[in-house]
């Protein structure tokens, strides 16, 4: 993610306009997955739904010179929102000029083809929704538009001109503003200073504070929030207010396209309504919005058209947001992908009178509530849920790294309330953020592996380096660590091998229960399959595994039993065999499938 711009285009891999669903399967030598694409978790994809399958947008060359409706500042609606219920008396979205057009955009990172032929067409004054699972390429796409990454292949046209921003500033200047999920505001500056950050109006180097405050006031009024004082410190604003400031910043740059990455994730229900009102105001002024959300009902309410991404490709473009049945939308997002090749499960859970782990009514205020679950010996339990559903917090609380407000965690009959007790009881955890939470990057592999167990190797306080190296070497062999050199600094390893080091740490400690938080994040395809095999082998050896992943196929493919978590609560539990991707995805995204839908 961090590696930004200027990567030379990959050697020509001509992305045909309509790539076959799974072009090249046999990608690389991942050991132990000889059995062909066996699992085929998704019944949905194979029979592609009948609605217009054209992945590429109609190539109507936009002849119009595309001036957005009115470059002059629109009249300020003071106070009353301009009738949000009927948004436009103007011609339908299909008649508005196209402002942004992406054709066959490709972006590769080492080991990952994050974007693999994306098509996208955005018209002036529309709310264009982007839909796709985690890892589908939405974030990368946003970053390409925002000037953080440079596309390797394909063309982007913006207002009729070829567009390749090399920096976020360039994208901003061109009129594309991005509002990230974690708002990039400076807490200790005022609303006005944030709105004009980086391009403050000035005279001979002195900020023109009054002018800035005045302009900010105008913009806030335009956004329907004249009550926010321009001088107020951003720190004192609630989340919804901060979002308004982010939008004010976009408008201060005269943005004609605003990209919003899950803007509703941080908002309460009534605040979402307000956000939608603002979005309608913006689109009424001819500004285009790209709206990303996992919540289908929001997309139905605010969206005009939908583009669906899967595995870095556009699987459906320009579907009507309201008219498309949920089933079709979900089926476009799902399906077996080359990234998930799961080893056959050799052993199931081993029945015991007592579960290895028992969690009862565990609650942490504002994070999760009344969670009860158990894990048996040799069982793999998967928790599916979106980022922010409380899953990582739950795992850390089980591990004793966070203090529970109420409820109990019991491992083999013993209560666990601290990390020390958890480790003693035989729990190990591979946390979500490998580098910041698990590894000493400059230390050698073997010391990272023995971080939880070096005291066990030691004799009266003196470390036994030779013993540690030997033990770490054995684990490295077992996990097929590459390179196999345990004296190498962990920093020099690939993401997948770093993860193996973290898992290996707990193997050395004789762990009976492993908590895995996003075990394959930032791991390339081949190493993923190896990690899956490792997890299965562990379970076969009697270790209980509780894993969290935002990638639904991973949860389904790995687990024996699946728990679905949404907004801090367990909403469903079932054996993995009885669930399919669409169902889980739907449960994760607020159960719209179960409600009435347009047929």
């Amino acid at each position, binding site marked *: 993610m961090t590696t930004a711009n200027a990567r030379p285009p990959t050697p020509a891999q001509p992305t045909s306009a309509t790539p076959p669903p799974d072009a090249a399967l046999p990608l690389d030598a991942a050991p132990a997955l000889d059995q062909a694409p066996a699992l085929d978790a998704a019944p949905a994809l194979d029979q592609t739904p009948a609605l217009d399958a054209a992945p590429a947008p109609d190539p109507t060359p936009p002849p119009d010179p595309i001036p957005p409706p009115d470059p002059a500042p629109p009249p300020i609606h003071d106070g009353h929102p301009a009738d949000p219920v009927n948004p436009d008396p103007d011609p339908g979205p299909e008649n508005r000029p196209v402002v942004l057009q992406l054709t066959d955009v490709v972006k590769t990172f080492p080991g990952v083809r994050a974007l693999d032929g994306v098509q996208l067409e955005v018209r002036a004054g529309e709310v264009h929704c982007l839909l796709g699972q985690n890892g589908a390429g939405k974030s990368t796409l946003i970053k390409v538009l925002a000037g953080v990454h440079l596309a390797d292949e394909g063309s982007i046209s913006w207002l009729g001109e070829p567009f390749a921003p090399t920096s976020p500033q360039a994208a901003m200047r061109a009129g594309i503003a991005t509002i990230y999920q974690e708002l990039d505001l400076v807490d200790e500056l005022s609303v006005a200073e944030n709105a004009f950050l980086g391009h403050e109006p000035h005279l001979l180097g002195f900020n023109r504070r009054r002018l800035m405050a005045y302009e900010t006031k105008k913009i806030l009024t335009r956004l329907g929030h004249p009550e926010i004082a321009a001088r107020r410190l951003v720190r004192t604003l609630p989340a919804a207010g901060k979002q308004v400031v982010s939008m004010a910043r976009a408008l201060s740059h005269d943005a004609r396209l605003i990209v919003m990455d899950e803007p509703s994730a941080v908002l309460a229900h009534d605040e979402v309504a307000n956000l939608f009102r603002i979005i309608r105001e913006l689109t009424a002024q001819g500004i285009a919005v790209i709206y990303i959300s996992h919540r289908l009902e929001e997309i139905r309410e605010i969206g005009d058209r939908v583009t669906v991404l899967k595995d870095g490709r556009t699987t459906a473009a320009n579907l009507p947001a309201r008219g498309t049945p949920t089933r079709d939308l979900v089926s476009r997002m799902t399906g077996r992908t080359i990234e998930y090749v799961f080893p056959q499960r050799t052993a199931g859970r081993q029945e015991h009178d007592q579960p290895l782990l028992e969690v009862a009514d565990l609650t942490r205020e504002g994070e999760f509530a009344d969670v009860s679950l158990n894990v048996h010996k040799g069982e793999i339990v998967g928790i599916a849920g979106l980022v922010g559903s409380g899953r990582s917090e739950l795992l850390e609380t089980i591990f004793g790294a966070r203090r529970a407000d109420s409820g109990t965690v019991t491992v083999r009959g013993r209560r666990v309330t601290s990390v020390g007790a958890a480790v003693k009881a035989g729990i190990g955890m591979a946390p979500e953020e490998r580098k910041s939470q698990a590894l*000493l990057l400059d230390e050698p592999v073997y010391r990272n592996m023995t971080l*939880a167990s070096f005291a066990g190797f*030691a004799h009266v306080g003196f470390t036994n380096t030779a013993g540690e190296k030997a033990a770490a070497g054995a684990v490295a062999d077992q996990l097929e660590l590459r390179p196999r050199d345990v004296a190498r600094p962990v920093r020099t390893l690939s993401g997948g091998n770093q993860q193996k080091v973290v898992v290996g740490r707990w193997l050395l400690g004789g762990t009976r229960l492993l908590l895995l938080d996003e075990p394959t994040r930032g791991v390339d395809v081949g190493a993923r399959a190896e990690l899956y095999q490792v997890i299965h082998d562990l379970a076969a050896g009697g270790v209980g595994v509780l894993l969290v992943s935002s990638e639904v196929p991973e949860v389904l493919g790995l687990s024996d039993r699946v728990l679905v978590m949404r907004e801090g609560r367990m909403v469903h539990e079932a054996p993995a065999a009885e669930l399919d991707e669409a169902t889980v995805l739907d449960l994760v995204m607020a159960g719209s499938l179960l409600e009435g839908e347009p047929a």
Partner: protein
Amino acid sequence: MTTETAADKTTATETKALRQTEGLLRNLGLVGVLVVLVIIGIVTRPELYGDATWVRTNVFTILQQASAIGVVTVGMTFVIIGGGIDLSVGAIIAIAGVWSTTVATQSYGAAGMIFTALVVGIVVGLINGILISYGRLVPFIATLAMMVAARGLAAQISGKQTQVSGNATINGIATTKILGIPLLVVILAVVVAAGWVLLNRTTFGRRTVAVGGNPEAARLAGINVRRHTVLLYALSGLCCGLAAIMLTSQATSAQAAMANLYELDAIAAAIIGGTLLSGGRGTIVGALFGVLVFSTITNLFAINNLSTEVQNMVKGAIIVAAVLVQQFRYRSLTQLLKR
């Protein structure tokens, strides 16, 4: 597959060699600085360096001057590797020195004085550690406060008077020689050796690196980060208590202003010895060389009768140069390893 493992092996030996080279280079660089300083001494005062007895005495003078600050630097190195900083070392020395030389303490004899100095050092270190670990104060702030407060207490106890040590055993430490080597130098050698073993061969040292390198990872691996942090500051306090006795012995007295600015010298020595200020990496041997470089400079200026002002300017320049060189070398080496 087989070819791959063979290739792995060659890179493994290569990287190992590179890593060893890095350690060697770092210390060699400081040895190089020392050699240059000695050469400057020879060039500026050839008549002195012609006299073998003088050279021998001078070497011991340098080492003796380095002894107390060297002991403090060992403790400081542990604290910095563990992700902290201790600005109060000079003040701890002052309070330990003053407390151990009060009339009441002196009545218990040499053992009582030594015991008092060490306990006072440990206790003040523990207070630092507890404030930082459990009170969640930033190390900089907590030890800055202690630096001010401990000196204040030392002045209070001593009534701003210089307290003369009447104890012959204590005063004799500075003049005793073992096999011709001053006892102070022997103490320094023992502390450095113990520090090296503690850092590189014990679980305590391993925890120190882990806690400083990535506290969150250490915590999630079951290491009691808070307790270890407290122990690190207590260790630093212990070193200060020992240094207080050594300084008292050298001066045959203690006072509230003793060991002034030792914190800066100790931090600087640790840093030019290759200890990362952000924690997680550092060496005891490097820190020792850092101390020796500083005391050699002091000596060089003394034998040439030059002012301390110039001396401080040179010290500052050496600190900057050492850190710049290390950063450059570290970057290029990691790039080599990454390849």
